[in-house]
């Protein structure tokens, strides 16, 4: 037998393979940064109190609770899990348990137990979605309803009050003028970013979202990875809920209502596709920052609540439409 006679030509410089248009590329990458900048400039011009340390601390503090959820939700979207609609239930779980268990087992164990139980709810959704293959919308809707029902039944449907004001003081304390809760959020974001972009689990998450069967055929434990995204989100919202409970020193079963939509909004405005396969925590947080700043400017301008909703809605639709358009132009 003869040896192989063919060598593929090494055409590094083949002009058939060029990159996409650089302008479109820049816009799709930096569009959000430009938008944030625009809001900052407009806000500073429109309101004298906007560009003050106090206001920014406010924005950050308001952002922290939903921000922690956003970190988790990023994993869900990237893994191709559409959305986690059980967030309100897991937040309630975290808030109510962290307060209700305080007198029984002490504040720190209560805090941990609250988060762990929220994580368990995430595990339920995760098992249904990853291992049985239920559509995530249906599964998280179902699990959310069940968990919220159980939580309500457990506390008899009323408000739970905190019994330990020291814990409230702790979460409300500031380090160098930055509220502790903001620091916790930043820590979660950094860990989340590291996991998604640098760890093998993160790469698995992206691969599973990008092509499930190919990832499976590449020995990626796709079921676990998919389930894991929901556990991560549940842990995040459990933490979020626990912090919320401690700040408010009271918790109702419905504390978490609306957080799922806020979190999805942020992630989506951050340019992360709901179809999965790519995305990063900083992008999602940039989306969150943009939404929060815009809301803040509107509130400072005295814009009425319905109008805010209107603007926010248009914004989500517009941001995603623009992103889709740019991506198509960019050929990516």
């Amino acid at each position: 037998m003869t040896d192989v006679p063919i060598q593929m030509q090494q055409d590094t410089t083949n002009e058939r393979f060029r990159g996409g248009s650089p302008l479109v590329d820049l816009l799709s990458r930096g569009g959000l940064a430009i938008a944030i900048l625009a809001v900052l400039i407009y806000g500073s011009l429109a309101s004298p109190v906007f560009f003050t340390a106090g206001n920014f601390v406010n924005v950050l503090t308001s952002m922290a609770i939903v921000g922690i959820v956003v970190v988790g939700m990023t994993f869900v979207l990237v893994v191709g899990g559409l959305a986690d609609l059980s967030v309100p239930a897991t937040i309630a779980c975290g808030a109510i348990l962290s307060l209700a268990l305080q007198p029984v087992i002490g504040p720190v164990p209560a805090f941990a137990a609250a988060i762990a139980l929220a994580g368990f709810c995430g595990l339920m959704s995760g098992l249904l979605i990853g291992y049985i293959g239920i559509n995530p919308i249906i599964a998280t809707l179902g699990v959310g309803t069940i968990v919220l029902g159980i939580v309500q039944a457990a506390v008899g449907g009323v408000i739970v009050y905190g019994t330990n004001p020291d814990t409230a003081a702790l979460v409300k304390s500031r380090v160098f003028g930055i509220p502790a809760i903001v620091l916790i959020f930043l820590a979660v974001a950094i860990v989340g970013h590291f996991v998604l972009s640098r760890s093998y689990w993160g790469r698995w998450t992206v691969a599973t979202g990008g092509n499930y069967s190919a990832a499976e055929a590449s020995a990626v434990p796709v079921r676990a990875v998919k389930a894991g995204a929901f556990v991560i989100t549940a842990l995040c919202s459990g933490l979020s809920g626990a912090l919320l409970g401690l700040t408010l020193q009271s918790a109702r079963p419905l504390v978490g209502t609306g957080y799922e939509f806020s979190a999805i909004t942020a992630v989506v405005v951050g340019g992360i596709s709901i179809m999965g396969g790519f995305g990063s925590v900083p992008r999602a947080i940039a989306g969150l920052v943009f939404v929060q700043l815009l809301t803040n400017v509107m509130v400072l301008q005295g814009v009425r609540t319905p109008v805010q909703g209107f603007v926010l809605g248009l914004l989500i639709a517009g941001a995603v439409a623009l992103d889709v358009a740019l991506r198509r132009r960019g050929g990516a």
Partner: protein
Amino acid sequence: MSAAATALRMRGISKTFPGVKALSNVNLTVEFGRVHAIVGENGAGKSTLMKVLSGTYLPTTGTTEIAGVEVRMRKPADAQKLGVRMVHQELNLVPDLTVAENVYLGRMPRKWGLADKAAMVRDTEFILNELGAAIDPKARLGDLSISQQQLVEIAKAYAAKPRIIVLDEPTSSLSEHETAALFRILRKMKQEGIAIIYISHRLKEVLEIADDVTILRDGSMIDTRPADGITAAEMIRLMVGREVTNVFPKTPSDIGAPVLKVIGLGDGYNFRDVSFEVRSGEILGLTGLVGAGRTELARAIFGLARATEGRIEIGGKAVTIKSPAAAMRAGIAYVPEDRKDDGIVPSLSVRENISLPVLRKLSRFGRVSMSADRKLADRYTKEFSIVPPDPERRVSLLSGGNQQKAVISKWLSASPSVLILDEPTRGVDVGAKAEIHRIIGELVAGGMAVVMISSELPEVLGVCDRVVVMRDGHAAAPVERAALSEERIMALATGEEAA
């Protein structure tokens, strides 16, 4: 239509995608009643040209004339109205409808304003019979195997009674048997005066069926010639722009002890009681007719599907394989049949695809070592001359053959002792094909055991040391290469010769 008119005249067609100039200034002329073959390497632009013809893409420049009339097609429906039908390279059917509904998709017959299901079923049954395919018109399409779906796709195009029919690699998932049936139909269509455009990497088929051949290279048209008087070697030279002597090289290697032993394996449905062994340094061919159960067998060995009976031994020790990860630990690797669906993660770069199975090994405390990751990717991009040689490029932007090389690289990074390749050269051009064969040759020379599933008999005969022929889920005893011929394999595969 006037019989004298030329069926199709495409002039100066160019098509640019962001970052790729897929076609530049291509001319194509096809006559009624003739089979016009288009050949070219992977990524030469064959499919793109046909998608321009079928209205899927708008050309950047250029004009199209059908039966002497200049036309402008903006969407597939426009082309269909003009009598152009296309069998796509990638299957393009609706899994949730029945076979009959698929065949009549977009032009269902009506009776009293309603869909006439009885007529659809009747006509579909007739056409499928003609194609020699035993498929129930009322079955849900998604329940069919890939090759059956391919036949439905062909039936669909044929049933529309087109003036021009385009077949983009119709035989890539068909067996010789079905290919023969297809060719009968093509000849009949020819007689009916239909213009047929036929794209294939199987040059033997091209020579058998085509009247004219057009060669594309790097998005440009090289030449159009009558098929009479052109040889395969000539076509290859024109396609790759250089001489090729042996498409199926066989590298000698030392055959050693059995590595993988499959004993009485079965899943109760797709394959039963399959036994064979592969030795180190050996390429074991696994062939058979469409739907013989080879893919399911391979998937079961790799832990992607569940076997219900029998066992697997690696190096003499029984192993239980319940997941691809377990298979990988046992030293088994599997390059799947369907590259688009199971092979690549399109949103990731070549580098990220290659390191996917071994990520954990490249990690410390959960963190992936970027330098190790890059090193791995660089090594295979060079070794397999992946084009373009940029590991950071998104794998979805590569041509089919190069994607396949990336998929093979991915598994070599796990350094397996047994490599199962399922149709590794399906839809891959001759150049890349030879390249892949060279790679496989080197691997076995290095002591690896390879199982190669292939429906292309020349490839099986050219590359494999021993061959197992499967029929209806059962495997015949392995036959030595020396004792094999295409006729013998066909006899085993069709059951003319008992196993």
